[in-house]
């Protein structure tokens, strides 16, 4: 499948829309007066770039740091160090008002459509809120825009005055997407955006995201733990393990010949739909690789920390 612009590559002719350089986020936990505080390296020297119009997958298991990475890019969590270039400018150096404006172009869709929407607000108001915050348009213009957004994400504009609990999980996620799209962003960070949904609903929401990618020329950072899903919708993918990217490359190349021991263990654990397919689990031996090894080229458009 060729979603995303195959030609747009980090280091290619066009500059990437988003480039993360040596991003670090440490969480320090104090452990009383006399003991050394413990440091969790949630994101540990991460670098990657996403081309315009690309659907870039960031995969890993719980605790790998993938969600923290997404939040650091938007500065919902302040990174400890590093650079995040968006359209060539380092957003980590932006002042607060400047960052607020920048967020128009970078939006996030969260995993849980049950807790990420304010239960006391009507769906239409939820979608309109970003327009009010950024003081865009008159009330009538905003209402028109909200109705258009409802239409765009496949929601019935007659349901504008309903509350979140009156919608199903899939519809709620559509509200979350409509809200993220309200300001016409260029980049959507989808943080496990479809993980909580039933498969049939998940497929519908994924289809919507793919359609919007083409129609609105959106770029996605698709954060997920579902490798099967990422394999089928992302053009490139990075695998995270304990705060580091251990492997990154073209989805097809990476899935065809996983090189890092962690990627191999992870892929071998994914359940297969064919009950007769040979199953060979590769257990992960954390001592079998060097955690500090840098990424190096192992194939065409394919890097691994081996």
């Amino acid at each position, binding site marked *: *499948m060729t*979603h995303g612009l195959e030609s747009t590559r980090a280091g290619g002719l066009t500059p990437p829309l988003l480039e993360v350089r040596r991003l670090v986020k440490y969480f320090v936990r104090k452990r009383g007066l006399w003991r050394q505080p413990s440091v969790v390296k949630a994101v540990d020297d991460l670098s990657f770039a996403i081309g315009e119009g690309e659907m870039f997958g960031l995969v890993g298991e*719980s605790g790998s740091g993938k969600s923290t990475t997404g939040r650091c890019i938007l500065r919902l969590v302040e990174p400890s160090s590093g650079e995040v270039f968006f359209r060539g400018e380092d957003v980590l150096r932006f002042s607060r008002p400047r960052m607020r404006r920048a967020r128009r172009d970078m939006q996030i869709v969260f995993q849980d459509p049950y807790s990420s929407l304010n239960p006391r607000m009507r769906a239409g108001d939820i979608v309109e809120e970003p327009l009010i915050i950024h003081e865009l348009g008159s009330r009538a213009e905003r209402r028109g825009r909200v109705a258009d957004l409802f239409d765009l994400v496949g929601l019935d504009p007659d349901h504008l005055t309903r509350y979140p609990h009156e919608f199903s999980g899939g519809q709620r996620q559509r509200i979350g997407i409509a809200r993220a799209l309200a300001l016409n962003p260029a980049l959507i960070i989808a943080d496990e955006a479809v993980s909580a949904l039933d498969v*049939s609903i*998940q497929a519908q929401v994924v289809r919507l995201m793919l359609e919007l990618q083409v129609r609105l020329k959106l770029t996605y950072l698709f954060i997920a*733990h579902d490798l099967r899903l990422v394999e089928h*919708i992302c053009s490139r993918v990075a695998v995270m393990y304990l705060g580091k990217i251990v492997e990154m490359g073209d989805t097809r190349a990476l899935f065809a010949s996983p090189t890092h021991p962690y990627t191999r263990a*992870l892929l071998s654990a994914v359940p297969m*739909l064919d009950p007769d397919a040979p199953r060979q689990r590769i257990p*992960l031996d954390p001592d079998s690789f060097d955690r500090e090894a840098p990424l190096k080229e192992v194939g065409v458009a394919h890097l691994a920390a081996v």
Partner: protein
Amino acid sequence: MAEPLLNVQHLSVAFEGTRSTVTAVDDVSFQIAPGETLGLVGESGSGKSVTAFAILRLLQPPGRVTAGRVMFEGRDLLALPEHDMRRIRGARISLIFQEPMTALDPVMRVGDQIAEALTVHGRTGARQRAVELLSAVHIPDAERRIRDYPHQLSGGMRQRAMIAIALACHPALVIADEPTTALDVTIQAQVLDLLRELRTQFNLALLLITHDFGVIAEIADRVAVMYRGTLVEQGPVRQILRAPAHDYTRSLLAAVPGAGISSLAP
């Protein structure tokens, strides 16, 4: 098929409200042979968990079994006095839940929780048996681990501890309700391997409730597909996965990433 261990016949469950009644399970019939694994698949709200709760008679009002029989080892569970049912629950049929952190008692040591399952059912030597069970589910250093509280265990270890509790009294049937859904994929693979191993070792029958066809393909012998309270299709796992007969099963399979999502491309 040999004499089934569990024979659910025409089971119906309704939730009665003040104004309307919702039929959550509608005339559901299936059998599980000794040592067999039946996968019960469906999406949220399809009635699969309600079916499990009805079998164990754990339904809370307003939920109520309105029709059917649940034959287990020659007796109709739905007609048993509660006293007898208690000797079956946890002993002959046990239950594994999705979320081990909420299913385990947070302020009780893991070993004591396993021992509790044993002493409730009148077994002696509970502590030693708890160690054996934790070893059987491959928790390393079981002697020491029985003194841990649930929060000291990782998610995968907690699920193993819950499996150990479920196995404590040598049940003939284990009902596992989304046992791996909350786990990372590498941990899920380990837990599925463990269930597969224990199934052979103890000749366990397994009713595996899941929304994930991948998990079904990994472990089930037969599959029953549930949609809006009814079983729309059941059969051997290969037949259902390769040649699903019902439209709903087909659409469900097509929605599994990797199976048909490429056809979703705009």
